[in-house]
């Protein structure tokens, strides 16, 4: 097993190289930096910069050096966790990202877990009732959910249930109420949960829809297998046949789906955080894009890509663990 994991890790290296190279090229090719390389003022990108910022960029990305040397230096620094300093407040980019990370992880994480918990029963029920009214209803609703853009849903939810002229059940913005600092632990926690409901719901329903579609197909596939007939022939209850024999098999491919959902969720989190003004990575990203805080932008991009890459790796390893047929030799 360790052998397999080590080998998979080594296989990451070329992809990691590709990710960093692509990001680096993107930086170097940007009109701003292209202008800087030529010794110009860097206004090519349409973003005004101070002389000090210009100097920082040149130094950090080695724009005054040949591309390969510059790339090597940058990767070397990035590997040591040095992603440069933010233009906005001169703090290390890594620190800025790290303090935003927990919130983003918690909302994407809860959305992912929640969508799995809801999607699998939905998919299983649809598969068992294949072709019947229940199946067709679930499939249609899921299809509609799948097609609703999350930002439109977020806006309408805010409008109708969070303040505004209609229902006022949930808070509209932020991660806590203004007076949260005066609350004791449990009211504070409750306040936080109330604030998280809408963002998590908006992030959940789309991946719920796609996971439940996978779950349905996967379950149908499992139910059509011969061993299901064997289990029934043994005299097992239908519930056991479905939940133990069929579902165990259907879950195997579903485990890897999370890796496919993750990039989508990260993209979704960017929008959702900006709508609900949550101080996560997404919001940091927008602030940086607005003020052209280049080191932060690049830091977040590389980080997101690396996280996605690692989630593919985790999915692969999980697959080997849960499926006894695959040996990792």
């Amino acid at each position, binding site marked *: 097993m360790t052998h397999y994991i080590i080998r998979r890790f080594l296989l990451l290296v070329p992809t990691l190289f590709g990710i960093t190279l692509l990001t680096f090229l993107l930086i170097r090719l940007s009109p701003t930096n292209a202008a800087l390389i030529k010794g110009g003022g860097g206004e090519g990108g349409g973003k005004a910069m101070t002389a000090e910022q210009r100097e920082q960029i040149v130094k950090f990305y080695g724009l005054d050096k040949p591309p390969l040397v510059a790339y090597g230096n940058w990767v070397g620094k990035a590997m040591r966790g040095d992603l440069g300093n933010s233009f906005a407040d001169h703090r290390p980019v890594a620190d800025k990202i790290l303090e935003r990370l927990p919130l983003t992880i918690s909302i994407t994480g809860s959305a992912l877990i929640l969508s799995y918990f809801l999607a699998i029963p939905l998919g299983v029920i649809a598969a068992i009732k294949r072709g019947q009214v229940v199946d067709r209803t679930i499939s249609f609703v899921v299809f509609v959910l799948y097609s609703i853009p999350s930002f439109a849903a977020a806006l309408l939810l805010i409008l109708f249930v969070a303040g505004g002229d209609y229902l006022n059940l949930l808070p509209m913005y932020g991660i806590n109420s203004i007076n949260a600092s005066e609350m004791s632990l449990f009211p504070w926690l409750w306040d936080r949960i109330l604030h998280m409901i809408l963002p998590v719901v908006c992030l959940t329903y789309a991946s719920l829809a796609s996971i439940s579609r996978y779950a349905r197909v996967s379950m149908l596939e499992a139910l059509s*297998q*011969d*061993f299901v*007939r*064997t*289990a*029934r*022939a*043994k*005299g*097992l*209850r*239908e519930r056991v046949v479905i939940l133990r*024999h069929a579902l*165990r*098999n259907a879950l*195997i491919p579903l485990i890897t789906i999370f890796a496919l959902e993750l990039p989508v969720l990260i993209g979704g989190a960017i929008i959702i955080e900006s709508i609900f003004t949550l101080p996560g990575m997404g919001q940091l990203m927008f602030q940086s894009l607005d003020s052209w805080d280049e080191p932060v932008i690049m830091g977040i991009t590389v980080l997101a890509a690396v996280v996605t890459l690692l989630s593919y790796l985790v999915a692969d390893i999980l697959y080997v663990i*849960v*499926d*006894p*047929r695959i040996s990792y030799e």
Partner: protein
Amino acid sequence: MTMPLLQVENLGIHFGPTVDPVKAVDGISFSMQAGETLAVVGESGSGKSVTALALTRLLASPPARYVSGSIAFEGRDVLQLREGELRSLRGKQIAYIFQEPGSSLNPVFTIGYQIREAIELHRPEVRDVTAEIVHALDTVGIRNPASRLGDYPHQLSGGMQQRVMIAMALACQPKLLVADEPTTALDVTIQKQIMDLLKDLKRTSNMSILLITHNFGLVAGFADRVVVMFRGKIVETGPTAQVLQNPQHPYTKALIECVPKLGQKQHRLKVIDYAGIQ
């Protein structure tokens, strides 16, 4: 005359549209005595598997439609049983072995677990289930059974997988074992081993066996009686020796001729001439 173990009367099973259905089983009747071995022979698609699965209503309805007849097992009509009663019939009274051992075993559970499930379900009185599993595996000729309990199906060869299926079927000491083409998916030497195993079981226990096959070669020396099916109907039935030596129906003759005999030169592969039948 004692009550037969199994009595199928005028059974009809249809698929597809009601107006012009696929009559997979079209009004068949046969019976089996306790301890008897019956072979059902017929070509592919003649309705053998459908009949076999119908014995415990394993064919889901829909898509199947049980349109006529009755299946009396020890006097009780299977077609009238409730779901719970059916479950205590399956595995406990009537056990199955299927054609494809590879796909009939669940790939994500160990073979030990899959046998244990059957024993715990139908024989709650057994104290030492593990010993019982080992015993079952030993009976079907798996060497060193105790060390095999934790194996997954894919770690076994096809022949061993089929032995595990048999062990699982036998573990609950059923009165009737339905073997639906148990050797078709295996290669020839393994086929012989499995058939020898079934013969042994037949000798040592009082279990009835319903052997389904399209190969008359397996029937001789194994079954007491033969039922020949053709397009959902029974075209001939009788004691094995009689049917083999003196087949009445042209289809039966054709089927028997399909079996290559040892020591006899085959100039051409025999092909069934449907024009001559009916």
